[in-house]
């Protein structure tokens, strides 16, 4: 059981890293990795939201939707759950911890319409994971995403000073750098076979 969870964690964090092998969350990945500080704040928020939304949507999907044969509505419901939860977190944080709210405020709103958050419940439903496995997938994916953000932000802070050919400045060079990191991550693919 524990070994199984460990496998899911390592697989989702490194081998099937959301950014480098599943290509999810790229908008955020390229958007917030200009500075290391924002990248760190963003990755913590993301991991928390991913774990909680994985748990919530597992409960709703398995205890409400499957018994009622509403599986075909999963896209609508999952996005509703994430949006509702994020909105709630936003309101609660504003009242209880204004300092943290000011740090994370903008990111929280951005999170609702992000593919990486929605992907976790969808993968959980497709793979028919149990409750603990779903949470582990959320945690592992969050860790993998954080790793990707921090690596990329560190590289981009250096890229700012580099002399890049004009047509490649900004987005194109970021893509090529990502390709190189993905190439490195390819080396992990034999680590565990799932």
């Amino acid at each position: 059981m524990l070994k199984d969870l460990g496998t899911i964690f390592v697989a989702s964090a490194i081998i099937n890293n959301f950014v480098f092998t599943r290509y999810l969350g790229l908008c955020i990945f390229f958007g917030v990795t200009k500075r290391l500080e924002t990248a760190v704040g963003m990755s913590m928020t993301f991991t928390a939201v991913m774990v909680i939304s994985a748990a919530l949507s597992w409960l709703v999907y398995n205890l409400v939707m499957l018994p009622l044969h509403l599986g075909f509505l999963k896209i609508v419901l999952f996005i509703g759950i994430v949006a509702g939860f994020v909105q709630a977190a936003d309101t609660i944080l504003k009242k209880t911890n204004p300092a943290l709210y000011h740090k994370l405020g903008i990111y929280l709103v951005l999170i609702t319409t992000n593919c990486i958050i929605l992907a976790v419940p969808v993968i959980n439903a497709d793979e028919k994971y149990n409750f603990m496995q779903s949470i582990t997938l959320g945690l592992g994916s969050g860790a993998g995403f954080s790793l990707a953000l921090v690596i990329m932000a560190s590289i981009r802070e250096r890229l700012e000073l580099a002399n890049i050919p004009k047509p490649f400045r900004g987005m194109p060079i970021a893509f090529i750098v990502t390709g190189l990191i993905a190439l490195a991550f390819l080396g992990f693919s034999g680590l565990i076979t799932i």
Partner: protein
Amino acid sequence: MDEKKPNLLKLIKNGIFSENPVFKLALSLCPAVAVTTSVKNGFLMGVAVLFVMTMVNITVSIFRGVINPKVRIPAYILIIATYVSMTDMVMAAYSRTAYKEMGLYIQLIVVFAIIISRAELFASKNKVVPSAVDGFGMGLGFLGALVLVGAVRELIGKGTLAGVHILGANPLLIMVLPTGGFFVIGLLMGLFNWIEDKYFGGTSGGGGGSHGGH
């Protein structure tokens, strides 16, 4: 009516060239890298997005007077989710092999920034016909970009084009692996920038007032 015709053409051109969702706005990149391992997959994905985008723009435009501005984003997401569910079911029923590869990404169309940004920036302020044309043009730009990336990756990675052998060898397998997608898009983006710089005077970002949809 005289004014309308060039206007509509301009909207389509806008979607394909000056505000190409992938190469220019850099929006909704996830599927652009993920499913473009072959021309066929890129094409299917592009058609799905084209359909969803046109229908969402039409629907949002029809209901633009009814939707309360305060709840507009949830309303848009519901509209998008409805059409995405339809596309998902049709795909699952009619092209099973392709669906196995790209099912996850079809379901994720629902959170594509490009769709919601067009609904917000264009369809919520314009009449039905221009909105439909705008959605169609943007979708066409997206489709074109996906097919282009798919073609480059399939040709270099597998030596085929739309399933037909051309090179007769397997030159660079890396191109159909995750890494290749990033390289090809990065290089194509650079190429687009270079062409624009060289032949159109390099005044990028001047088209329309609808920039900044990140």
